[in-house]
């Protein structure tokens, strides 16, 4: 292996000669800087290669001596990786700072070289005092760099930084000298074995060492200075600090870790967790991009720190495991944060910063936020799709979504913590992550410019995008590698097998692969992309068909078939419709992946993929910023619960919930996690907004298909352990009946509330959204029955809901497209303009309301039969009431849109485009077929359910027979048809010379209305009903969640008040932090 000393010599020589080289021109000196960076990079790569191929860590002495006498450097796996990271980040940062470095005095380039070398030294050295020297080199180089391009705010923060850094240095020196005093060595490896350091005195000495290192790691609350630096310094430098510097310091901490005793570890863990939480809470209240990134950065480092200490404290796993998890977090953080800061640098370079040198969060899209004021003067611009993709990748990685490394690390960590029953830790970590996800995704959401308005010029980022793109690509690559080979697989293939991976489940990557390909082809015309997406879905379905058992087949029709329908529907508008097709395909395939997952990790991976892709789809909608945010926050919250449930389940070898444990809380958590996605009452607040504000075809996909994935989740959860291997359920193992009864009531409440809310909506899509929620409520209720009839009802209802909700959303999409509004009272009398859509809606509402002879009645019949047979009488009555309420909004829907008086301005409306009509016709056909022959659907369902439960339902001829009654769908259809024909005949015979009248030919109260088009009775249609029962639905859940959000935000607001901006206060925080830590250590000892 290359002796690292050569590199130090080269760096120093380069730096020392830089003043001379600079005489040749700044270009030459910068070339030298890049050259040195590349040298480090190359060396790190060569070390890594040597080590991975079986090499062992190697020590390099100085002055011809080894450990006790001289300073020793060590190159091991982690060191090599760390140097690689530092060098890579350094090169990217240098590139981002290139322009500034060229203009500033040569000292900037020198300091940059020093910083790079200092960080490498921090990583490589095994000597405690030498570590101090390198810490000082990097610190002083940083101080110099903060001011190098002469931003006034940066000067202020540099001073603050120096105060804190100076205090930390003093502490470190005190620590190191007493370590020498008691341990009689300065070498780390010898100190670890030194007996003198074991006692109380050694503890105190080590404490100062630790405290100094911790302060450098920017713990809460002693990190105000760091935040100011992140906010004000050149973003390239911020990237260096957040990415490279933090990595180096963490590696230093990792090196020192064996020195520390339990008390120290407790301090590290506690401080790290507190930083993680506080950083994220305060981060949620930030307006400025870089300050927010700073908070996030601080929090992430806190988490990595905590994981390192916790791993040792709780013996979470082998050292390799720990390194994999902590390393995963660090890698994730370092790449993502580097990329984001560099992106911010690119923004700045593109002129998005205002004159005061303060960058607004709302740089791209200033619509409705107070923070927009600072950026309001700037002309609106939007990001190019590529820039958006890069930003998206970075943020999603940071948040820990698949397929990025953070996702795998989080899974492993939660799994390990769950194995050791450290629930509160899981709660803290996931809670903090959720808050972080909230504000990072909010930021990302803001980058998406509102469409539809006047065309906005694209922001030119140019070469500035290169750095972020490299980071994003690296993240994605490492994430995929981690996923395929296990988390450590990317680092050390030998160890891959010890950690969970998706090695056996290649299908789960299909959504990502297809989305990537389609994104690359996004420049193609819309119809071609639509066909490609359709082809991808079809190919996927064809390829995986033999992996689907009966249950999955039914769901596959709903999920994949639904996806296909809506991809067709997306052809309704001409043009490229950028981003829509890839996302539709991705959501569809992720739904397929949910079906296919065989392991718990695979299931969760697919679940998160689904959440993520559907969020992107929602965000594509025009006014979806806020709804999309609550969608993803609730989605992630639910996913976290699911993850904990799956991790803590304690499954047996067959992968089933342990007996008796079903009622225990891991199962409950997983259940609640899935109920979030299903939109159960109380957890539904994301639902109406998300469904309403997504693109119209996307709403349909979400409501008709994606919600079925949640239903599938319910079945999968119970049918075994995460994931159904076979269709078997042991009722004995399924805990108390109270659980199912409670779940039933949850479903019932959802059904009732959904229906009631839907009644009073004016927005057509909101109506459908609430209706969707209500229908899912019935499905949950039937599912909770836990018998054959109930499950049959549940599956039947699910399939029907898929059918008619698809029809409704397709028809409504056409109406909205033609009419240009979503308010029902602004429509009317469209039956003549859009007869096919009307017919679709008519059939759909008949089916939805459960009126015979269409399929909907089958669902009602099954539901009530099974409820009454089970003895859930009160539930049956409430369900009856709820389904009555459904009539209200359904009538409202069809009346307000299609019937009544037309609006004058809608006289030119045409029928919906073929892309919408064709799927509607297809669905109508299916609906009719299933109505006439219910057996077509019921046979496969009964086949599934009777394998799980003792059968109580069965066919006798064409009649479905339950213990209580019977239903012959075919005969019903014949009788109804006959009677209807008879009546129609009478009418036809009777009709004579009827004369068509103009629509507005009406008279009431003895007069002709002056403006008859205003007599369309549609607005606040059910106002008396609200007077009567409005009290049932007073948005309690919304208010609860607003309260929760407000509370979190208030805590964050209170926390950030600590950061007064006064450098002296920050210094005070530092000293106070140290004193408090000392006291805590005293308590722990």
């Amino acid at each position: 292996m290359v002796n690292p000393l050569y590199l130090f010599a080269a760096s120093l020589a380069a730096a020392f000669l830089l003043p001379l080289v600079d005489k040749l021109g700044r270009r030459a000196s910068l070339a030298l800087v890049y050259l040195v960076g590349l040298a480090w990079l190359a060396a790190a790569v060569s070390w890594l290669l040597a080590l991975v191929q079986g090499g062992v860590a190697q020590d390099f002495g100085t002055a011809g001596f080894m450990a006790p006498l001289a300073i020793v450097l060590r190159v091991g796996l982690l060191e090599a990786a760390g140097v690689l990271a530092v060098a890579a980040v350094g090169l990217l940062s240098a590139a981002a700072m290139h322009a500034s470095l060229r203009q500033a005095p040569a000292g900037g380039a020198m300091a940059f070289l020093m910083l790079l070398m200092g960080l490498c030294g921090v990583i490589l050295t095994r000597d405690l005092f030498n570590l101090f020297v390198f810490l000082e080199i990097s610190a002083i180089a940083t101080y110099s760099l903060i001011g190098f391009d002469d931003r006034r705010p940066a000067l202020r923060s540099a001073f603050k930084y120096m105060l804190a850094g100076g205090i930390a240095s003093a502490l470190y020196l005190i620590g190191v000298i007493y370590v020498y005093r008691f341990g009689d060595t300065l070498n780390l490896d010898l100190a670890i074995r030194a007996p003198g350091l074991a006692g109380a005195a050694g503890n105190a000495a080590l404490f100062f060492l630790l405290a100094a290192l911790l302060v450098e790691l920017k713990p809460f609350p002693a990190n105000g200075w760091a935040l100011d630096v992140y906010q004000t310094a050149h973003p390239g430098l911020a990237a260096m600090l957040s990415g490279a510097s933090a990595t180096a310091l963490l590696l230093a901490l990792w090196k020192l870790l064996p020195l520390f005793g339990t008390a120290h570890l407790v301090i590290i863990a506690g401080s790290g967790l507190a930083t993680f939480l506080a950083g994220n809470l305060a981060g949620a209240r930030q307006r400025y991009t870089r300050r927010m990134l700073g908070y996030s950065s601080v929090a992430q480092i806190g988490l990595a720190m905590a994981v390192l200490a916790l791993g040792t404290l709780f013996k979470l796993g082998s050292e390799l495991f720990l390194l994999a998890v902590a390393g995963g977090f660090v890698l994730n953080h370092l790449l993502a944060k580097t990329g984001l800061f560099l992106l911010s640098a690119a923004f700045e370079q593109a002129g998005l910063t205002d004159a005061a040198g303060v960058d607004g969060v709302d740089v791209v899209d200033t619509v409705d936020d107070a923070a927009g004021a600072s950026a309001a003067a700037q002309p609106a611009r939007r990001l190019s799709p590529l820039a958006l993709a890069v930003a998206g990748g970075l943020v999603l990685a940071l948040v820990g979504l698949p397929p990025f490394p953070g996702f795998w690390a989080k899974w492993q960590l939660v799994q390990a913590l769950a194995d050791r029953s450290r629930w509160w830790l899981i709660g803290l970590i996931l809670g903090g992550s959720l808050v972080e996800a909230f504000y990072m995704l909010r930021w990302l959401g803001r980058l998406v410019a509102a469409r539809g308005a006047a065309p906005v010029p694209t922001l030119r980022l140019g070469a500035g995008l290169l750095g972020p793109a490299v980071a994003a690509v690296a993240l994605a690559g490492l994430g995929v590698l981690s996923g395929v080979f296990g988390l450590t697989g990317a680092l050390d293939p030998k160890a891959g097998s010890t950690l969970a991976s998706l090695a056996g489940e290649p299908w789960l990557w299909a959504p990502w692969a297809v989305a990537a390909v389609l994104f690359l082809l996004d420049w193609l015309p819309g119809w071609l992309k639509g066909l490609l997406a359709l082809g991808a879905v079809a190919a996927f379905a064809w390829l995986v068909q033999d992996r689907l058992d009966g249950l999955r087949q039914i769901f596959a029709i709903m999920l994949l078939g639904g996806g296909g329908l809506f991809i067709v529907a997306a052809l309704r508008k001409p043009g490229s419709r950028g981003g829509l097709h890839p996302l539709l395909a991705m959501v569809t395939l992720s739904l397929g992946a949910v079906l296919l997952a065989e392991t718990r990790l695979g299931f969760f991976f697919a679940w998160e993929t689904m959440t993520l892709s559907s969020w992107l789809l929602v965000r594509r909608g025009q006014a979806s910023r806020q709804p999309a945010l609550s969608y993803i926050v609730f989605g992630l919250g639910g996913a976290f619960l699911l993850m904990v449930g799956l991790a803590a389940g304690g499954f047996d070898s067959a992968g089933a919930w342990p007996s008796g444990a079903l009622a225990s809380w891991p199962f409950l958590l997983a259940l609640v996690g899935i109920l979030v996605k299903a939109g159960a009452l109380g957890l539904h607040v994301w639902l109406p907004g998300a469904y309403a504000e997504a693109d119209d075809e996307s709403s349909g996909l979400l409501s008709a298909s994606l919600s079925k994935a949640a239903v599938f989740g319910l079945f999968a959860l119970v049918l075994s352990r995460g994931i159904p291997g076979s269709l078997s359920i042991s009722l004995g193992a399924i805990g108390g009946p109270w659980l199912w009864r409670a779940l039933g009531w949850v479903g019932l409440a959802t059904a009732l509330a959904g229906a009631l809310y839907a009644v009073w909506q004016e927005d057509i899509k909101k109506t459908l959204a609430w209706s969707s929620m209500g229908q899912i409520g019935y499905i949950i209720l039937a599912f909770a029955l836990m018998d054959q009839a109930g499950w049959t009802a549940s599956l039947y209802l699910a399939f029907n809901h898929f059918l008619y909700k698809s029809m409704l959303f397709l028809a409504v999409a056409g109406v909205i497209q033609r009419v240009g509004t979503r308010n029902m009272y602004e429509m009317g009398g469209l039956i003549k303009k859009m007869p096919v859509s009307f017919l679709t809606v008519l059939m759909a509402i008949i089916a939805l309301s459960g009126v015979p002879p269409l399929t909907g009645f089958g669902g009602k019949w099954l539901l009530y039969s099974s409820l009454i047979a089970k003895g859930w009488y009160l539930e049956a009555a409430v369900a009856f009431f709820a389904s009555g309420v459904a009539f209200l909004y359904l009538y409202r829907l069809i009346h307000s849109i299609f019937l009544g008086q037309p609006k004058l301005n809608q006289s030119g409306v045409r029928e919906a485009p073929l892309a919408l009509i064709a799927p509607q016709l297809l669905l109508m056909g299916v609906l009719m077929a299933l109505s006439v022959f219910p057996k077509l659907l019921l046979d496969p369902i009964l086949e599934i359910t009777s394998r799980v439960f003792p059968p109580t339902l069965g066919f006798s001829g064409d009649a479905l027979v339950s213990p209580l009654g019977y239903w012959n769908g075919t005969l019903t259809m014949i009788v109804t048809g006959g009677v209807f024909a008879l009546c129609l005949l009478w009418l036809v015979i009777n009709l004579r010379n009827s004369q068509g009248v103009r629509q507005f030919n009406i008279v009431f109260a003895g007069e002709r209305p002056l403006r008859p088009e205003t007599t369309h009775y549609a607005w606040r249609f059910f106002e008396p009903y609200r007077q009567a029962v409005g009290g049932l639905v007073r948005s309690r859940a919304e208010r609860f969640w607003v309260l929760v959000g407000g509370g979190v935000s208030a805590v964050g607001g209170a926390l950030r008040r600590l950061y007064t901006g006064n450098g002296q206060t920050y210094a005070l925080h530092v000293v106070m932090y140290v004193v408090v830590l000392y006291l805590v250590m005293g308590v722990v000892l």
Partner: protein
Amino acid sequence: MKLAAILVHLNPVAIPGALLILIGLWGILARQNLFKIAVAFSILGTGVNLVILSVGYIRGRTAPILDGEAAVASMTDPVPQALVLTAIVIGLAVTALLLSYAVRLRSGGGGSSIEVHGDEKW
């Protein structure tokens, strides 16, 4: 007698060193003027240096320089001395940089009180 033992055990260099550290911190935390804070920093640095060297303080020993008659057995610990040399120089570097920033902050039109340089916060 007991008192004497304790006194003998007390390090006469370390105690003023520690006190200087505290005084320096006091100055850093309680004085507003940027330059005064820098002065306090240099006092803190002196204190730290004293503490470091106190570890190498051995009663009755001489400087670790081999010049013929001096026996190795009568020399003090050279390690802290080597470390302090480094620490002093680094202290100077920090002080110089700190002062440069103070000069820039001051001459940029701001006051010299640290309180007025706190625009970034929360």
